[in-house]
Every structure is written in structure tokens, then in C-alpha cells.
């Protein structure tokens, strides 16, 4: 398995000055990250030009500037903040992760547009790591999960709502407004103006014909959308993007800022303490959370799906049989129906009507199929360790039935 070349480009995150001229600004990369197949729409020359337009601020701020004039707390303030130190200890962060970086993870892009001081780059890295680890875990643990359920599970594990809840559970307080005088232990972001609808931001895909929802298939989601199956923003002209960033009028919601913070923490751990520490952090804080995956299914036609599944897997077609019943002519009849494929009982369900009992039985049978989980599964990221045993391919099923 090919290893990710994260360390190479993450060096630019650690030392912001060392941005090679030939490489595109990371902002543009971020804008295009989720559009996997698109080539870069901007040429290098354009990028260079854009680079010039960015407000150039020296990476080391002169100390004479008043704290109130800064958009985010100065780097030196991180050492003074008891809140930051307590947060560092509360999250059991490795000691190699300095307080200054932890302070940087708490500064959102909307608070400080300077990429040298905000958490945007760290959050991008952290997002990639989180989604990679989560998807590996989900696919290897439940190899037969339908794609839509994988999207939902991804959302449940590393979605913005979960990350915002985690920020809250970590005891991170949100600053009212960003600024140099703010304690670096507070999460700083520019809030949305009152009356703004946070969901109003246009979610447009690149493909005009896919804007209508009825055209969007699961395959299209896999190809074009982000890890949660949500459509991503269309690629905007980078010049416009830069202009919008320079103006920086729009704020972000607290949920989005909190999610960025958690991602940035993962990214910072990865950069400073290495891959094992990041993995451990992921297992302890993300995978340890409780999620009942069988609750994520929403079947519309379970009996039909089961029939298709049996046909695909060349089982005998499923047959529903009443196992027991009571009070068929009463007001509260109960039927217990089993679904049989040949002699094998696939599932069983009870309902107040024969149809309901049959669909419950089908759901039970489908969940039993989809939620198959092999024993002692080995995740692909274990290959990243030195001296790992040779990789044996894990079983990943076809996924959902296509009706």
C-alpha cells in the first residue's frame, strides 16, 4: 500500500515562509481538495499573481503593536495562558505539541485571515486524517455496509455536529469576538451577523445538470461530493475567493468553527507528535464514542431489497412464513413472520399485520447481512508502522443492492 506523502507538504504548514513559488497557495488547494477528478483550473502564473495580492504580513509580529490591534492573540500569550495549558493536559496531548500550536488551532480563519496564524492549514490536514481513519475503520469493520450508511456513519463520527459537540465536551469556551486581548484558550472566530441564515450558503456542484436532486445517484455522490455525501461548493474563480477572504466580512457558525478546531488539533498532533500519536488520539477521542450503526438504516422497500439481494447472492428467493400468530380477528392481532430462503431462516419479525411483520422480518434479514463484521480485522493504516507484517487484503463486499 502506498504511503501518504503528508510529511512533505505539511512542512509548509509548519514553516509558513517556506512556500515554494512553484507550488500553489494552499488556499487554492483547499478549495479544490474535494473535487477529486478536476484538474486545477488556475495556471501557475495566475496563482503567482494571486499570491502577490495577498496582504503580506511578516511572520514575526513586532512586539510594539498593541494587543488590541491584533486580530488574534500574539504567539507569546500562549505561554501565559493557564486555560491553554489546562486544555493541553485535559486532552492528554503529547508534550511535543507546544502550547503555541495549540493556541493556533483555536484561531479560526474568519478571525485571522493570515494563514500563518490561523488553523486553516492544520484543519485541512486534520480533516483528511480523520476521514481517512474513519473510513478505513468503517469499511474494514463492516465490509458490507451500503454507501449511504457509510456516509451517515462518517457524518456521525467526524461530522461537524459531532466535532462541535466534542469541542463542548472538551471544555473549550467560545470567545465572543476575536482579538489580540482575548485569552488564547478561547476558540476565536468571527460570528455570523445576526439574522444570517447559516444554511443559505449556496451549495452548488460543478455540474449544472446535477443540481436537481433527482439526478444525483450514489455513484455521483461518491465521485463528486464530500465524505458525508454532501455536495461541495463549486470551484470558484480563485481571484474572487481571495477577494472574499480579504474582505472577510462573513463569519462562520459556531459549529463550523468548533469543527475546524478539532480537525486542527488532530492535524497539529500529527505534525508535532507523529502518526502513532495521531492514531492514538483518534482512537481515544473519536472511535471510543458510541454509535449504533444498525440505527442508521432507513429502508423503504425491505422485502424487495431482500429479494434482490438473494438474487444477487444466488440464494433461493426469500419466502415469508407465519411462525405464530394471535388474535387475527381481534383488535390487536400479532403476527410473527420469518423470512426463509430455502431452509435457512434469514430473519424474523413481529407486527400487527402480516405485511408489517414481513417487512420487519426483511429488515432484520437485511441488517443481518449488511452488518456482518469479520473478527480481528486489520486496518490498512497499520501498514504505516515500521516493521509491519505483510498486508493481507481484507474482505470488502459489493455493498448495497442496486434496484
Amino acid at each position, binding site marked *: 500500500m502506498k504511503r501518504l506523502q503528508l510529511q512533505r507538504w505539511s512542512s509548509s504548514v509548519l514553516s509558513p515562509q517556506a512556500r515554494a513559488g512553484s507550488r500553489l497557495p494552499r488556499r487554492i488547494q483547499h478549495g479544490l481538495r474535494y473535487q477529486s477528478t478536476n484538474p486545477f483550473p488556475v495556471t501557475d502564473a495566475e496563482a503567482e499573481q494571486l499570491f502577490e495580492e495577498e496582504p503580506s504580513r511578516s511572520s514575526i509580529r513586532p512586539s510594539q503593536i498593541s494587543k488590541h490591534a491584533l486580530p488574534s492573540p500574539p504567539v507569546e500569550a500562549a505561554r501565559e495562558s*493557564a*486555560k491553554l*495549558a*489546562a486544555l493541553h*493536559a*485535559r*486532552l*492528554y496531548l503529547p508534550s511535543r505539541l507546544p502550547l503555541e500550536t495549540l493556541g493556533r488551532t483555536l484561531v479560526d480563519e474568519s478571525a485571522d485571515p493570515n494563514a500563518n496564524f490561523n488553523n486553516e492549514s492544520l484543519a485541512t490536514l486534520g480533516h483528511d486524517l480523520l476521514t481517512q481513519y474513519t473510513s478505513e475503520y468503517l469499511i474494514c469493520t463492516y465490509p458490507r455496509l*451500503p454507501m*449511504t*450508511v*457509510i*456516509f*451517515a*456513519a462518517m*457524518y*456521525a*463520527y467526524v*461530522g461537524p*455536529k*459531532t466535532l462541535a*459537540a466534542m469541542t*463542548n*465536551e*472538551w*471544555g473549550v469556551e467560545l470567545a465572543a469576538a476575536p482579538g489580540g486581548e482575548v485569552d488564547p*484558550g478561547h476558540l476565536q472566530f468571527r460570528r455570523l451577523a445576526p439574522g444570517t441564515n447559516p444554511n443559505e450558503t449556496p451549495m452548488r456542484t460543478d455540474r449544472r445538470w446535477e443540481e436537481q436532486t433527482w439526478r444525483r445517484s*450514489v455513484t455521483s455522490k461518491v465521485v463528486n461530493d464530500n465524505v458525508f*455525501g454532501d455536495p461541495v461548493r463549486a470551484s470558484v474563480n480563485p481571484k474572487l475567493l481571495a477577494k472574499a477572504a480579504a474582505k472577510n466580512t462573513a463569519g462562520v457558525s459556531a459549529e463550523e468553527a468548533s469543527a475546524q478546531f478539532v480537525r486542527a488539533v488532530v492535524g497539529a498532533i500529527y505534525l508535532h507528535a507523529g502518526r502513532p500519536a495521531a492514531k492514538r488520539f483518534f*482512537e*481515544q*477521542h*473519536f*472511535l*471510543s*464514542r*458510541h*454509535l*449504533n450503526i444498525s*440505527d*442508521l*438504516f*432507513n*429502508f*423503504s*422497500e425491505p422485502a*424487495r*431489497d431482500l429479494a*434482490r439481494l438473494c438474487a444477487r447472492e444466488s440464494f433461493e428467493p426469500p419466502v415469508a412464513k407465519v*411462525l*405464530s400468530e*394471535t388474535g387475527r380477528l381481534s383488535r390487536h392481532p*400479532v403476527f*410473527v413472520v420469518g423470512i426463509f430462503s430455502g431452509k435457512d431462516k434469514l430473519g424474523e419479525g*413481529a407486527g400487527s399485520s402480516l405485511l408489517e411483520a414481513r417487512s420487519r422480518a426483511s429488515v432484520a434479514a*437485511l441488517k443481518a447481512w*449488511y452488518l456482518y463484521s469479520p473478527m480481528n480485522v486489520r486496518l490498512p493504516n497499520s501498514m504505516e508502522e515500521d516493521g509491519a507484517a505483510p498486508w493481507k487484503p481484507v474482505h470488502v463486499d459489493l455493498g*448495497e443492492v*442496486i*434496484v
Partner: protein
Amino acid sequence: MPVQGIRTVTAARNGVGAFILQCKQLDFHYCDWAGSSRGMVAFLKHQLPAFAKANPQIEIRVSPRPHKHPVIKGHYINGREKAICVRNLEPEQIFNKANLLKEASGEKLKRTKKPITSLNESVRGIWSPYHGGFKSV
């Protein structure tokens, strides 16, 4: 579409992976002049550094509160606060009070009738009259 995913949020299980101490901040207030703060001042002078070192995950803020009794105030992750007045207490008693605040969850005190709660389903399942070895209905 055959099956849809339902979006939910994972539930935290504090202590299953990492354990986050629920007390996030302790405020120690004292008065320089008043005699009721004598034990508090001694505690701050001699015992607090060790307490802070033993609990690095708690932010400790020491600030005077003139003409008032000494108070320890705990801030919790669930947003609640607990304050204990430690007037005229000895340093050891104050240490115990600080420990009490540190170990508290921040919830209101309530009687625990069922000491174990779980997010997982019961292994045995819910009893059903239609299943099991019944002879006749």
C-alpha cells in the same frame, strides 16, 4: 434508492477512550486582611502548587476578593458552577473541599438508584410472549 442513511451524532462515553475531567476551572478567592482567610492563605502558599501539579487539566485562578469570605469556585464542562465557602477552615479542610470540587461532575446532586447505565442494548433482549419454548397459545 434501496436504503438511506440516517444522520446522527455519536454519543460521548467519557472514560471509555480518554477521560475528560469534568472540572475545568477552579477559582480560589481570598482576602488579604480578613481572619477568615487565614487557612486559605496558608493553603495557597503551601499546598496549592502541589495540588496544581497533581491536576494539570484544571485551570486554577487565584484572585483576591477583599472584604469577603474565602471561596473556592469550580467551573464544570456542563456549564454549571459550584462554590464552597471555606471561611475559618484549616488548610487540610480546604484541600478536601478542593478535592471535592475537582471530583464533582458538575451535575446537581441526586440520588443514584441504578448505579450502572449503558447505551448498549440489553444482551438478553426484551421478553416476548411469542418466542421461546411455549407449548401452546
